Structure formats: structure tokens, C-alpha cells
């Protein structure tokens, strides 16, 4: 067990400024007994920090000096108020997995139904860490090499200019780890991909391997209505002729032509591209109408 800073030796004279509504480290068990996916992160930063920094960082965390914290893919930014009037801005830069590494991991995770099931209820099975290890990804699931060097994981920076990890980093890490305890999937964010996306990609993969492909368009309900096609063995006497519903179909008037109906129903693209996609599609639909009408009049599709 790592020896923790002795609180009785704290200097009482210079208390930090109070933060109203800051994140307080209120955990009952203190820093003990964090689960496997959170513990190494806190333990390693306390080890890496100078004893005073570790000790003061712990006190800062308890008194709620962390004013803001934003968790983004591969990066956590926080502001921590110390004795100075302005808060220090600090950042944790985690090693992220490359798209290829993610692809490998998601491939492995989608091989078992267990993972997506657990992830859906916000649980992180311990085997994910071993899986990540066995795939020899560039970084382990749980980061445990904090420091100021470029190879550190996370690499910490702070506007206080002190040696890293500084007490501010230690304080912010308390808060992050406390959150991690209840939101274990946050680890994926730290490694570069939000958990929601991980889950989606796993499910995507699973459908892909179940169906052979995955697609953006929904299927009509007729696609899954198996009653429409009775077993072949029951149709031996009438094996070659189209059924009578072909006449129903032929009698149904074609879709009335409403120019650009689908495009207008779609509205603006949510994909966030800059290229005027909808505009180009409109002109494409014009071409399609012309071409389709020609084909209708008997000009064969591959006519040219």
C-alpha cells in the first residue's frame, strides 16, 4: 500500500480561495478501494507527484477547488483555483488508440454478445483490459503513467508552471477518478472514442456479421413478412406462374409524381459537410426523372 500524505503535517496558513459550486471529492472511502478500472489512475498520479503536491492536491480535491472539468475524446481540461486570483488551466492528454487499433478492439468486442450487453448498462467487464492487452494496442485500457513527459499517459500540463504532475493535476484527477468509478465507460472517451459510439460500432459489427452487410437505409416491413412466401414444397403444383397479387400490383396506380418529394421530406443534411449536398441531389433528381422517363418509353438502361 502506498503511504499517503500525512494530513496533520499540512500547512494551514495559506488556504486556497474558496470555489462556489466546485467539484468536491466527497467519496466515503476516501481514496481507498477504487475499483480496478479507476484505482491505477489515481494511485499512479499520487506516486508520480511530489509528496507535497500529492498531499495538497488531495486537500484541494476535498475542498472542491476544481471549478470546471470537460471530458473530451482523449483529453480532459479542468480549471483549479489555488491561492492566486485566477484559476489554473490544466489538461490531461491521454494516449489515444488509432482508428486501426479501435477497429481491432471493436472487432474483438463484437465477437461476444457479453460486451455490448454490459456496455449498454454502463458496466466495464475486467476482461476488456486483458483483451486490450492481448491485442497489443498502443496503450492499456486504464492509463497509469501520468507525468509531464511526452510519453506520459496522461501527459499533464498546467498553467501554474510547476513540476508535473502538480497539485492542481492531482486535485483534478481525484474528481475524474471519482466520476470514472460510476461511469467506467468514460475510459473509452479517454482513449479517443465516446462510449455511445463504441456501442454503436459494436452493434454495427454484430449486425454486419449476422447479415453480411450493414446499411444506412431502413427496410420496408414487407422485407420481414415471411408469410408472403410460403415454403416451396407447398407450391409444387403451381410452381411457375406469378401469383394473383401481381394483378393487384398492376392495378395499383403508380406513385403520383411530386417533384423532389423525398428530398424535400429529408430537409437539410445533418451530416455537417460543407459541400452543398442537397443542391447537388436536386439536380441529380432532375437527371433521374429525365432518364427514368426515357427508360419507361423503352430506351433501355445500358443503351449507350
Amino acid at each position, binding site marked *: 500500500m502506498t503511504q499517503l500524505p500525512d494530513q496533520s503535517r499540512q500547512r494551514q496558513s495559506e488556504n486556497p480561495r474558496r470555489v462556489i459550486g466546485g467539484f468536491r471529492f466527497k467519496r466515503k472511502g476516501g481514496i481507498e478501494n477504487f475499483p480496478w478500472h479507476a484505482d491505477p489512475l489515481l494511485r499512479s498520479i499520487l506516486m508520480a507527484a511530489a509528496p507535497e503536491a500529492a498531499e495538497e492536491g488531495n486537500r484541494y480535491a476535498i475542498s472542491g477547488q476544481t471549478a470546471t472539468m470537460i471530458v473530451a475524446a482523449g483529453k480532459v481540461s479542468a480549471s483549479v483555483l489555488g491561492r492566486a486570483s485566477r484559476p489554473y488551466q490544466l489538461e490531461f492528454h491521454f494516449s489515444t488508440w488509432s482508428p486501426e487499433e479501435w477497429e481491432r478492439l471493436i472487432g474483438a468486442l463484437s465477437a461476444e454478445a457479453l460486451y455490448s450487453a454490459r456496455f449498454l448498462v454502463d458496466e466495464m467487464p475486467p476482461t476488456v483490459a486483458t483483451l486490450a492487452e492481448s491485442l497489443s494496442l498502443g496503450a492499456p485500457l486504464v492509463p497509469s503513467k501520468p507525468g509531464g513527459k511526452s510519453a506520459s499517459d496522461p501527459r499533464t500540463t498546467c498553467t501554474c508552471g510547476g513540476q508535473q504532475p502538480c497539485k492542481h493535476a492531482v486535485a483534478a484527477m481525484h474528481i475524474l477518478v471519482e466520476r470514472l468509478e460510476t461511469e467506467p465507460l468514460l475510459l473509452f472517451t479517454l482513449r479517443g472514442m465516446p462510449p455511445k459510439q463504441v456501442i454503436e460500432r459494436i452493434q454495427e459489427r454484430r449486425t*454486419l456479421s449476422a447479415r453480411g452487410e450493414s*446499411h444506412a437505409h431502413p427496410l420496408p416491413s414487407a422485407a420481414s413478412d415471411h408469410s408472403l412466401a410460403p415454403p416451396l414444397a407447398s407450391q409444387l403444383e403451381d410452381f411457375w406462374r406469378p401469383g394473383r*397479387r401481381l394483378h393487384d400490383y398492376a392495378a395499383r396506380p403508380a406513385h403520383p409524381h411530386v417533384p423532389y418529394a423525398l428530398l424535400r421530406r429529408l430537409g437539410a443534411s445533418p451530416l455537417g459537410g460543407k459541400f452543398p449536398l442537397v443542391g447537388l441531389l436536386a439536380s441529380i433528381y432532375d437527371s433521374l*426523372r429525365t432518364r427514368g422517363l426515357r427508360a419507361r418509353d423503352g430506351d433501355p438502361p445500358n443503351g449507350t
Partner: protein
Amino acid sequence: MFVLHANWSGSALHLWGESLSAARLGHTASRTAAHPWGTAAKDLTAALDALDAGLGSGTPDTLRLLLPHLGGAAPQVLPSSKLAALLGRVSDDAETLTLEPCTVPSIRVAASHALDRILKIRSALASADGMIAAGHDLEWWYSLADFSVNAVADQRVVPTVIQEQGGGFRGQWRPWLNDSDTNESVADLIASMPAVVRAVDGADGQAWPIVDGFLAAATDSLVRDSLVAETYEDSIEACDPTTDPHVSWLTGLVRSTDAIRTGRGGAFDLLRGARGWLGLLDEAREARALCLGLRLEEPALDAADTGIDATWRVHFMLVDPETNETVIDASALFSRGDARRRGAAQARDEELSGMLLQELARASRIWTELDDALEEERPTGIDLDTRRAYQFMREMRPILLEAGFVVEIPSWWGESTSRINAHLLIDSPDELPPMMSQGARGAALGGGLQSLVGYRWQVTLGSQVVSVDMLERLAANKAPLVRIGGQWIDLRPEDIESALRFLRGHPGGTMTLIEALRMANGIDGPPEALPVAGIQATGWVRQLIAGDDGSESFRLTEAPSAFKGTLRPYQLSGLSWLAFLDRLGLGGCLADDMGLGKTIQLIALLQHERAVSGGQPVGPTLLVTPMSVMGNWRRELQRFSPELRVHIQHGLDRPAGERLRSAAESADVVLTTYAITVRDKDDLQSIPWRRVVLDEAQYIKNPPTKQTAAIRAIQSQSRIALTGTPVENRLAELWSILEFCCPGYLGSQPDFRRRFAVPIERNRDPKSGERLRHLVRPFVLRRLKTDRTVISDLPPLVEARQHITLSDEQTRLYEQVVKTMLQQVDQAEGIRRRGLILSALVKLKQICNHPSHYLGEVAPVAAAKEANAADGGKKIDRKKPAGKRGAQQATAKPAALPSDETLDPLDAIDAQENLAAPIVLPPAALEPARSGKTQRLMEMLDEIVAAGDSALVFTQYRAMGHLLVAMIRQVLDVDALFLHGGTAQGRRDELVERFQRGDGSTPIFVLSLKAGGVGLNLTAANHVIHFDRWWNPAVENQATDRAFRIGQTRTVNVHKYVCTGTLEERIDQMIEQKTELAANIIGAGDAWLTELSTGQLKDLLSLRRTGMEGGE
């Protein structure tokens, strides 16, 4: 020759064939389960290349299919339905079928060329005859191909993203199938997919992957090829697909390759984003408790401004999507949100306003004007100026409706009366032009259609006629909607433009009636896109175009007095119509349903014109009929109008040249056949006819044959076509018929095809259909048995004899058998004499049915026995226990006769029950024209099936039943049900159940009189045909009662076939006249005949010549 089939396998189209010759030779499968008749790849390639040299033939491959086999130790593959028809194969229900794998050579066509191939095959097979026959499954592929072409033409396609296992992301164009009506079409296509289409081994009989695979490939190739051809790729050339998801998607959509290029990990985001976006289209389907309603209210009548700045208001409301009823108006919802409403009521209001806002937000994605409303705290509606209101009605409304909103707009919108319309005004005198009323002989053909009428055009806005000046003022105004006389008019700028051009270009004048009618229906004339609202006329033209509605104007008060029949009210109005057209020198087509009495109406017309002319000769009518119904015509003419002089132009000794001319001149009606019309064309064309009438006018086929040309070249004042087929659904037939009776009226054939046939038949365009109906209405009269005016006139049961003329072959055979028998009988006595008579009787009946029935081409086993029987009764000892109709027979015949019962037709059926199945009939056996009866049966069944009716066909002979089923299959392409003495009980029930389902898939039921004449309930049929006669009215009536019984809701038509001049007719007459002899006949089998003297026999059996035999 081979039958072509198509399958979808491994993302490619496979074409394969069954060779007719291999099947004829009876090749059987080898142990490798190769299809014994599979067409070799090189033959397929050669034949397909011959169809269209430019195809690029595809790759030889092999297909493994699960096909029905005839069970047993070594299962034999069954021919497809098409091949079976070509072979004349009759399936027997004794067969047990199993599904077995079988491989067949195929030509693999890449997915990107699949649509092209299907469409080309269709058009090539439609025009070519020869090497390839289309399998029935191809019909289904044609529909699927049309579906994908229509989806592209209607812009019902969407781009999508597809990730395949193994990683690659592709762009694809697909039809959008999730709107409820499209989904329903897809369900229909899947449900109607022939089993063989999903019979690829290993594909698990699944339907959707085939539909999905083909639709996606067809749509994508059609779209992509056209985008590549138009170089859409250039528009994204300078853009970076790694940073812009739009560009990235387009890389997979507009280039000839479908791979999507993206930055790292971007493809997945694109897939997800595209899924979310396309998902928005699906929202309309999601069940919502309440949806947004938008109600457009037009400016008040007394509003200050009714022009371009008028204020229109769209009110918001919440509507129940189930009932389309307004639950609450937004204004009501928000105005009651005050302090007095508390608790639950208030919570409910808050929930409702939440829903309203959510729906408004959803709608604003489509109709962006709503954004303004959403900025308000309590949006209740938005105001629009006239231009925006117009845009809302014309453009936004259909989209909003599709997206699942409810939109209400003023009722005048979309009505033709609220658009600019052109009206054609025709002036014609009240009296008919003198040339027509006199009916001058030798008048030019179609004189009526070519007569000149005065005309002018009018343009109207609403109910107001407008001048050029006013139109010009409106054009300057540029308002899309104007209010004229309190009514809003949809004033599209393009409409004004065309109206102006139109009025300046068409000052009026005279034109022919044909031009006027075509123009009034928007066919010819003004090319400008101005809707022609209609035609208004004075005088006789008004009567013509008034159609059925105005039938009062030419109603006759009564039938001609010399007419010996009673016309039902609808027949009287049919006569009036014919007489009216006739007075104008116009032709027409009487297309009443079978059984409504077209013959009688036409005969009444002939009688009528004699009454009108007051005894003056009016000139002869040439009546052209199929050979099989000629006797019927002759008989009906005699019965209803005995004073009409009829000359029958038929037979070897028919007159020619001058003799024919004088025969025609001294006759009122010259009755002849289609075949004779061709042979005697020179003589017939030189006679000035009063009128030419074609019965079964569908014989005038297209493309024009020698026969058609010969008939069209006959000079007459008017032409009338009679047909019972639903001409409105058979457009090629309609054109041919109208081209005969109203030459030029429907335009040239290609023009008609382009303008009507393709849009109606292939694109199911209701507007074109409506226009065509309007156009032909003055010249086609078709009443259905189900029409209300007709149905009240009809008795529940209509019985009629069909008098059938024997074919030449039948005549020859018949006379030969009678002659031989009479010689032999004269010298024989006792048992031998009786045997001779009975066997001859069977033969004569068979000859009346079909020569091949007699000659033993039908069923070798049974025929051999009968042939033996014919040899003087050596083997008449078929094992059949006696005593079925015991007492009478016992008294009527000496017990010493071993043969009499077996020759009872009903027993003959049972004697044949051990027929080997399956039976393959030689092609000649299936030739309907060899027998007047089968010829007539095919004509009648064709009309019955086309009209959506169904029929029971009774025959005494099982072998004849087999022949009929095979013939029906080959000639009409319909699988008839067949029930006979050998049908097992379970199978009987199944057949009856299938027929009674009445879904149109099995409209014909052939039954043996003995097995099917009692006990069954077959009320789905409304026609009963007694193909051969069992001389016992009680037995026949019992059979008729299968259809005519409780549960029958329609009129039942009973057709009894009787061959003219034969013993059939003679005995029929005896029964009808209740002669003394008849009492012996009924119920007595054929035994009584054996007691007749040779003289009596001769009188009864020998063929009575009527002048209609021996056409050669």
C-alpha cells in the same frame, strides 16, 4: 426452340432454358441430376445474341435449382408450365410431386446489366417469334423491372451507404420502399413471386433477398450510368473527401465505382449520419397519437385586398391521424391556457401544446416558413400572401401529406374549373346531313367521320369566357391566383401563355368530325399544354358526344314490328345506338358482355332499317363470323327475322364473280367466314355493301394479316364490330377494332402505342386511361352483366344452344363413319347389328367433339380400345358391372347384349379410368380449329376469362377432358382445373375449394359429367358449358345446378353445344319437341337406337347439309 427462365443468384441474373426438342424426345435425367432438357450455354448465347446483337452475352455458368419432380425411385423433373403447354402435357392428380435439386446451364448476367437484360428480352420477345418462348416466371421479372424504372422516373430513390462484412464502405442508389403504398407494392411483388424464382438451391426459398438484390442493382445501375454520363463527378473534383462527409458520400454515388473515400474513421460516421437522415423519411410511418394539421383559409370575400397582397392564413391544429378529425385548434388550445384551468386539465393542455410544438418543429424541416411561427410563444398560425399561399398549395401540400401531416385547402384547388380551360364549340345542324340520312349506296367509307363541322375555340376562367385582351392584362399582373367573380382561379403563367398563343393560332373554321373529336379529347391539334375541358356542340354532333347519358336523345320507342323477338330495355337502347350511328354513316363497336345478346341487337338493326326505308332496298350487309358460329347466326336470323333474305357464302359450290354479285344484290344479309373473306376478297371488294359486320371482331388482329387487310379493303357505308372481350383492357385489340370501324380515329398504331398503350399498360397512368375512355365512348358500347341497368333486366338463368358448324375434317370423318355403318348394318343382324350401331354412335359423338378424340390421338390406351370396338365389336367386353340405371335398361334391352352399357357414355368414362398418367398430346391434337366445338369453346373461354368470369365445362369423356385442359393451357395460357372419375376424394375437395376461392387464378373448371355432375357446390361459376350432350335433360340440369343454386349471386349462363346437321342436333330437336321418340330416348342410354330400322338410322344419323360445310 426453348422456354426462357430467369433466376437471381450470387448477385447476378441467370438466364436458362428448357429445350422443347429435348423434352419431346423424352430425355430423362442422368444420375448427376443435370436437368435433362436444360438448354446448352452455347445455344442460349446464340439465341440471346440473335434477339439483340448488342447485348454482350454474359458468362456461361451453372445454376442449381430445386424443381418439382415426379416422385418415385428415380424422380423425373417436370416441365415448366410453359413447356407443358407447348408439349400438350396433361398433369394428372395421381402424380406425387417432390422437390429435388437439379443443375442447369445458365448465362450469368452481371447485376449492373440485369435490368437492361430483362427489359430487352421483353421487347425482343414481344416482337420476335421463333427460337424463344418466355416462361411464365418472366412476367414477374418484367413487373419487377418496371417497378425499378418507375421508381427512378418518379424520383422515388435515395442514396444510401452500405458496409460489407470485411470492411469496405459503398455508396448505393436504392428505391425508397418504406412509404406505405410502396411497401404494399413490394408485398404484392413478393407474394406473387413464382416459386421457381426463389428455388435456387441453398437460398432457403427466401424471397426478399431476390427482390432486394435485383431492385438495388437495377436502380443503382440505371442511376449511376446516367450520372456518370452527365459527368457529375466533376462537381466534386476539387473537394476533399477526407474532411467533408458530403463529398465523401458522393464519391461512392456519382462515379462509376461505388467505393466511398473518407478520412480515418469517417466512413462509420457517414453510415451513422446517413442512417439518421434517411430515418427521417420513415417518421411518417411511426404511430403518433396526434399529428399536426394545417388548414389554409382563403381571404374573406369582403377583404380589402383580393390580389397579390391578399392575406391567406394557415391555421395550426392537432389532428387524430386515424380519423383525420381535428382534436383541437392551436388558437383554442392557447387561448384557454388561463388561470381558470387547473390540475389535470392544465396538465393535459401542456401536453398538447408540447405535442403541437414538436410537430411544428418536425414540419418546419420541410416547410421552412414555419420557422417564423416557432419564434412566437404561442403559435396558432401564419399569414401568407397570395404567392406564398399558391406555393403552399401547389408545392408544399403534397410533400407535407406524404410526411404524415394533415393539410386542408379550399375545395376549388385542383378542380379543372379553377384552371384556364379551352372549350371546343362545334356547330352542326339539328338534322343529319342529307347524304347520310339517305344512306346513298356506295358512299365513301366512314363518310360520317369525314363530314365537316364548324368549330371555334373558347378559353374560360372558371365559368367566364375570356378574351385575348383580358388574358393579356392577367399576364401582365403575374399573379398566380386571381379571384374572378368570387371564385379563385389557378392562373399558372404557363397556362396564360399557352392560352394566348392558342387563341391567336386558332380562330376557328371547319374541320372534319374525326379531327374535332380527337382535338376535344386533347389528342391532336393544339400542341400547347392547355387543358381541353371539353367539347360543346349543337345539333347532331351533340347527340353523338352525349354518349350514354344522353341516350334519351336517340332512344327508339319500340322494336321493329317485323322482329320476332322481345328486346330487353338495354337491348333496345343498344339497337337505338347502332341505328343512330348508322344514320350518321358512322361505325361502332358493340362490346357487351357475353350473354347479353349482341346477335339479337344486330338482327334487330337489320330489321329496323328495313322498316325505316319503307320497303325500299337498302343494300346488303356482309356478316363475317368465325366458322364455328356461322350456324348459330343463320339460325338466329331465321328465328328473329325470317323475312330477311340470307345468302350463305360458304362451301365449295359457293358463287363467284357475277353470280356472287347478283346473289348479294338479292339478299339482305350475306353470311360468310373470315377464311372465305380472304379467298373471295376480289369479288367481295367489288360489291358496294350497305354495311360490314364482324362478329368476334377480335379476329382482326395486329400486326395486320392478309385477312385483316382483305377485310379492311371491303367497301361499305358503315362498319360494325361485335366482340365480347373487354376491349378497354386489351389496347392492341381496341386499336385494331376501331381502326376497322372508325378508320383513323385512334391514329396510327405506333402513335397509339406511345400515347395510350404504354402509359396505361406499363405505367398504370390513370389519366391516359380516362382520356382514352372518353375518346372512344361515342363509338364503343359495352354493357356488363353487372351493370345495374342491365342486371335488373336479367333473369337468374339464361339457357342458350350454341349451334356449332363442323369443320371440314369433322364433316369428312362424320360422313365416312355414317356411310360405313349403314352399309354394314344393312347386312348384319342381332347382336352384331346392335354392336355396330352403338360403336358408330360413339364415334360420331367423338367426331363432333374433336377429330383427335375419334382418331385416338388423345389417349392411346383408351383410343385403342375404342378403335377395336369400332372393328365390329370384337372387344366391347370392358369390365363394368351392370345395373346402375337398372330397371329401365333391363326392360329396354335384351340381356344378351354385352356391349350396351359399356357404350353408355357415362360408363365409358369409368372404362377409361386406368389411363396412364401423365399424358403428352401431339401438337395436332391440340389444334382447336380442327373442331367447330373446340374453336368456339376457346373463343368463349377467352371472353369469359378476360371478363373476370368463371366457367364450368362438362364433358362425358375423360379423354376429352384431358384434351380440353391441354388445349386451354396451350391456347389461352390458363391452367384449368380438372375433376373426373379417378380424382380422389381429398383432391376433389381441394379442387372445389380452389375454384370456389374465386380469386381469378383458376377461372375454368373442366368436369366429367358423371364425376362432377352431382353433389358439388360451384357457385363461383357464372357460365356452364355442356360441351357434349347427355340426352337426358335431368342429368344436364343437375350438372347446371352445380353453379345455379343457393349462394349464386350472378346470372348463370348455360351454353349447350350442338353440332349443326348432326345427330346431336336431331336428337336435341326431338327432346325439345317432346316427340314420341324422345320419351324413349330420355334416360335410356343409347340402346333405343339399336332398334331403329336402317332407314330411320339413315334419317337420324346422316349429316344434313346446310350449305355451310366444306369450305375448301
